[in-house]
């Protein structure tokens, strides 16, 4: 073959965009262009057997196929239906596409071979396959539309979401396939489809073919080609049913908590001990009367609404809790900027990290204003009642002065048959005077600030003073005293007298005429003296043993109906004994009669 022809062929194939070889019937490369040499990594390919450019495992097969091509040399792509690979001279392999052609102008059977390196394309195809798999498998509906607004892609999730298969959807207008709940939103979305706007996660619903809506979040982005022209849009639609349900449950729970906080007047607070940040819940802002914008958000601001006289104590309590990590609980009054006052309970507990280091104190602040006011009102009412009792009792003294005074004037001066009437007037007057005096004693004992003067007093002397007082009350009864010698009490003598007078007159009231009343005194445990008054009465019903010390309590089954009382005597006893660091209780003696026992200190506590 003339070299001139080969040169012509070389010149010709050098202009081809692909790597080109010219191979003779024996398989020898006769001509190769520069691209081919670059592709196979060779300085020169001419003279090589073409089979050397085929991976070794295909080399034998290649020789056979080459022979077959020689028999039927119609131009065609090589290896139809198979992926071809070529081998560089250094042994590395790469995917190729090969086209074969016959050159018969030379008088010798030559084959032209065009080789294209398809490494890039294979990679892109592999990526696209993976990407396609992702698109198919993802739970988000992914749809694409062309510039004409017709669906061009419709993945499995889109099928599930709408109930429309890709076969049906593709080629139809998007808004026929994707029925969006909010028509206004559809206009916006249409703008996105037209490439006029990007839509990021807008919420709406999409109806299935049966009409049931599914809550979704839609994002839309235009598809732009390499020239910047809009080719359509891609939409990503996420089914947010679970999210919406979870959010609705969360909202419900939050609403309930908020409602409970509002109804209970409970605010929440947290103090980050490292940053000094203090956070208040909405309800706490409400209670304190300090809005979120006015609140400084630190401990100083937290404490600022507290009354100055308690502020420091609360600060110390919180600081201590922050240092020791102990819980705390306190009540105090808040002074709101609007001048209002609230009585609150503040409690807190520490929050620690995994290492046990204190992070924050958090707790509640509960508005107890109403309850506090109710308790105060009750106390006031109680105080007013005691004052009223005192005033009424005092006022009774003046008419009693006249009743008793004139009664006594008449004693011995009226005809015999009228004498008993005068007796009755005086007797009742005296009884009433006794009641008035006891109510006044009680009223004084409740007045608060009982000013007791404690000192050591021998019991003998205290009792001697006592008998003078109760002589007339115990006139009809046998009186016994059984006391250990040398007992000395550390008491207020006046309070002690009140206690014993009331116990003895109470005993006299319930003991029938001629019955005996016994006072016993002995050393008890712990430097205390035990004094008891036994009466000869019917005893006290078991369920009233404690209640007898309540104010205005009257034992229900009092058989001695003529003996009335104000029901305050034992309440006075209780008050004075408690004020003297003692205690008093009642019990029944087996076989009848009540025993009132008083335990009082014998030495200064």
């Amino acid at each position, binding site marked *: 073959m003339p070299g001139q022809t080969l040169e012509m062929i070389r010149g010709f194939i050098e202009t081809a965009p692909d790597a080109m070889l010219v191979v003779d019937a024996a398989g020898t490369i006769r001509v190769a262009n520069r691209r081919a040499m670059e592709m196979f990594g060779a300085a020169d390919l001419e003279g090589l057997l073409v089979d050397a450019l085929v991976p070794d495992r295909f080399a034998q097969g290649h020789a056979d196929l080459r022979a077959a091509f020689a028999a039927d040399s119609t131009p065609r792509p090589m290896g139809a239906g198979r992926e071809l690979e070529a081998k560089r001279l250094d042994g590395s392999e790469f995917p190729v596409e090969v086209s074969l052609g016959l050159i018969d102008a030379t008088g010798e059977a030559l084959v032209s071979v065009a080789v294209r390196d398809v490494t890039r394309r294979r990679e892109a195809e592999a990526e696209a396959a993976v990407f396609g798999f992702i698109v198919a498998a993802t739970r988000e509906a992914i749809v694409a539309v062309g510039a004409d607004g017709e669906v061009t892609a419709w993945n499995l999730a889109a099928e599930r979401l709408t109930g429309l298969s890709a076969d049906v959807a593709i080629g139809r207008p998007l808004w026929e396939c994707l029925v969006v709940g909010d028509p206004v939103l559809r206009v916006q979305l249409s703008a996105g489809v037209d490439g006029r706007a990007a839509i990021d996660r807008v919420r709406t619903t999409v109806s299935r073919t049966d009409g049931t809506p599914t809550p979704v979040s839609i994002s839309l982005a235009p598809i732009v080609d390499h020239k910047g022209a809009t080719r359509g849009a891609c939409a990503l639609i996420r089914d947010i049913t679970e999210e919406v349900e979870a959010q609705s449950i969360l909202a419900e729970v939050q609403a309930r908590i908020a409602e409970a906080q509002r109804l209970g007047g409970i605010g929440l607070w947290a103090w980050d001990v490292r940053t000094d940040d203090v956070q208040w819940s909405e309800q706490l802002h409400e209670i304190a009367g300090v809005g979120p914008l006015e609140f400084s958000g630190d401990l100083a601001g937290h404490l600022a609404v507290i009354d100055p006289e308690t502020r420091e104590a609360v600060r110390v309590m919180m600081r201590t809790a922050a240092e020791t990590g102990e819980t705390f609980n306190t009540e105090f009054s808040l002074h709101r900027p609007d001048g209002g006052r609230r009585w609150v309970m503040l409690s807190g507990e520490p929050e620690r990290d995994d290492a046990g280091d204190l992070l924050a104190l958090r707790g509640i602040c509960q508005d107890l204003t109403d309850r506090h006011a109710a308790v105060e009102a009750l106390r006031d009412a109680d105080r007013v009642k005691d004052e009223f009792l005192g005033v009424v009792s*005092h006022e009774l*003294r003046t008419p009693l002065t006249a009743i008793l005074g004139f009664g006594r004037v008449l004693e011995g001066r009226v005809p015999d048959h009228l004498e008993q009437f005068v007796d009755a007037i005086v007797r009742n007057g005296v009884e009433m005077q006794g009641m008035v005096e006891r109510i006044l004693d009680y009223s004084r004992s409740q007045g608060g600030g009982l000013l007791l003067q404690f000192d050591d007093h021998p019991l003998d002397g205290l009792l001697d003073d006592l008998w003078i007082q109760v002589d007339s009350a115990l006139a009809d009864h046998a009186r016994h005293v059984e006391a250990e010698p040398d007992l000395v009490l550390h008491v207020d003598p006046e309070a002690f007298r009140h206690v014993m007078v009331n116990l003895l007159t109470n005993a006299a009231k319930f003991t029938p005429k001629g019955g005996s009343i016994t006072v016993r005194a002995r050393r008890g445990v712990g430097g205390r003296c035990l004094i008891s008054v036994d009466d000869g009465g019917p005893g006290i019903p078991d369920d009233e043993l404690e209640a007898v010390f309540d104010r205005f309590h009257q034992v229900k089954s009092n058989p001695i109906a003529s003996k009335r009382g104000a029901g305050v005597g034992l309440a006075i006893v209780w008050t004075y004994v408690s004020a003297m660091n003692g205690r008093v209780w009642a019990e029944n003696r087996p076989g009848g009669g009540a025993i009132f026992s008083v335990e009082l200190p014998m030495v200064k506590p």
Partner: protein
Amino acid sequence: MILPTLLIVDDEPDIRLLARTLLAAEYDIVEATGGREALEMITGRGDVEVVLLDIRMPDMDGFEVLAQLAERELLEQLSVIAFTAYSDAKMVDEVFRLGAHGMLRKPFTFEELTGALAAARGGAR
């Protein structure tokens, strides 16, 4: 026999009557229904020696009467015994601070009344 003049000051007529009844044998009894009238009688008559003075009265109370008597330097010539249904320590202190010579608590017995009068008159002289 000329009895010393005793002025009973109380807005309660029954108490005035009681005191008059109990003391008629020993005193020449005159009565005033309130503080103002009492002051007028003491200054006007000039013969009042003993005053039984109620503390709580509507127009001028016993404290004020005592204060006025002290101001007019009349307390020295009188024996004033205050009497009241109220008995708290503060009231008793106030009564004596204002210069009363005795104190009597309602309701009082005949013995308590005469005892208080004797003590006050003895002390005043």
